[in-house]
């Protein structure tokens, strides 16, 4: 026996060194894989929310925002995309550090994560799980509405000339009260040059998207008025939620 092997065996004996128990290693591996799977599922969910928010956009309103490229740029839910990217990075790192994960080239891992997220996100949306998630976050997270809901962020911008809400009362042939998605009451006026797209009869309860100019505290001059015709699936009831009526 060599001097080194004697020294090592003595140290093992004196310090009672033991191999890490097999069950501990199994638990560690299981925990690692659980983390990978949970992070992947959350990533799919985030991707599903991106898909959900984009699919409920009223793409016909693109001209109001300066055309399709501009509209796409504004409609993309960047916050959800950032969450998806962050979760995907975590999946990548955890997979890379798994027992055999290092053998796969980065492009295969990234491609695999993307494909699984696409499929998972689509499935989550198809099963109708995105809307309840959206509503729950809207109700419980104060910052969600103004940071994650790209649709709301586009339309709830009276200072930039965009207002969305539901007609409360017809004041006169050129004015109506509108309750916006934040439950604020606006007096919206319009002149003969205002464009209605499509031609609609103003009645209380009608959900509208209005483009124009803020003229004062809770005063808005409309230049274009649009019916919100994209019904959200499983639309929840709530002052913050715009549940447009189906167009006939």
């Amino acid at each position: 026996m060599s001097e080194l092997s004697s020294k090592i065996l003595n140290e093992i004996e004196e310090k009672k060194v033991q191999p890490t128990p097999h069950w501990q290693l199994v638990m560690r591996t299981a925990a690692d894989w659980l983390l990978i799977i949970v992070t992947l599922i959350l990533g799919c969910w985030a991707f599903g929310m991106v898909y959900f928010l984009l699919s409920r956009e009223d793409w016909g309103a693109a001209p109001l925002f300066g055309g399709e490229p501009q509209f796409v740029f504004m409609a993309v839910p960047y916050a959800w995309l950032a969450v998806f990217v962050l979760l995907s990075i975590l999946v990548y790192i955890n997979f890379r550090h798994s027992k055999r994960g290092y053998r796969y080239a980065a492009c295969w891992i990234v491609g695999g994560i993307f494909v699984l997220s696409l499929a998972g996100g689509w499935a989550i949306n198809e099963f109708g799980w995105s809307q309840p998630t959206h509503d729950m976050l809207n109700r419980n997270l104060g910052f969600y509405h103004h940071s994650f809901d790209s649709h709301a962020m586009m339309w709830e911008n009276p200072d930039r000339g965009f207002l969305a809400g539901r007609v409360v009362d017809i004041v006169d042939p050129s004015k109506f009260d509108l309750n916006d998605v934040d439950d604020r009451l606006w007096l919206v006026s319009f002149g003969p040059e205002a464009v209605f797209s499509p031609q609609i009869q103003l009645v209380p309860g009608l959900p509208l998207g209005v483009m124009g100019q803020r003229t004062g505290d809770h005063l808005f001059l409309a230049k274009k008025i649009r019916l919100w015709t994209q019904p959200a699936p499983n639309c929840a009831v709530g002052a913050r939620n715009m549940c447009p009526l189906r167009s006939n």
Partner: protein
Amino acid sequence: MAETTLQLQQKSDEELVSLSLIDKNIFAYLIERYEAKLKRYVNRLASFSHEEVEDLLQEIFIKVYKSLNDFDQKLKFSSWIYRIAHNQVISRFRYHQARPQAVSFEDDRAVNLLSDAEIEVEVDRHLAGEELSRAMAELKPEQRDILILRFFEGKSYDELSDILKKPSGTVASLIHVAKKSLKQKLEKTKINTNTTN
């Protein structure tokens, strides 16, 4: 009937791992099988003192013993033990925040590396070894490490992949970049002379 020393010496690494988990004294056979190789590997990575090398080897083998249940039978044991050795040496570098000093590469394998990197070699291998030592010391640690594992420890691309935990394609790229870097450093020191047969 207890197995004889000769019988144990003839067992494969994987069999010795299984037996070491039952009787720790059998672990000595694995130590003796890999002591010289790992000592040479550690000495090639940096010019540690004799005591530091002994310390490092002790740390490495203790770590190996603790991790025996974690040995993946689908890997070659030598790749696995080299992986542990590699990681322990890197940890030691980080702990001391020291860059490794030049070591000597004066042997036939130095010539293999030089010719593989398409660098013309001196007939005088002593000179070639000295210049190579200086150039290797200037390489980034990960470049030096991969060249040592490939050309001095004789590891295949698959083994390198298992030791460094990187895909084979990445290993090939790293070797290519390391050889190119080495060539540039050697050309700077003007090693090129004509090869005489």
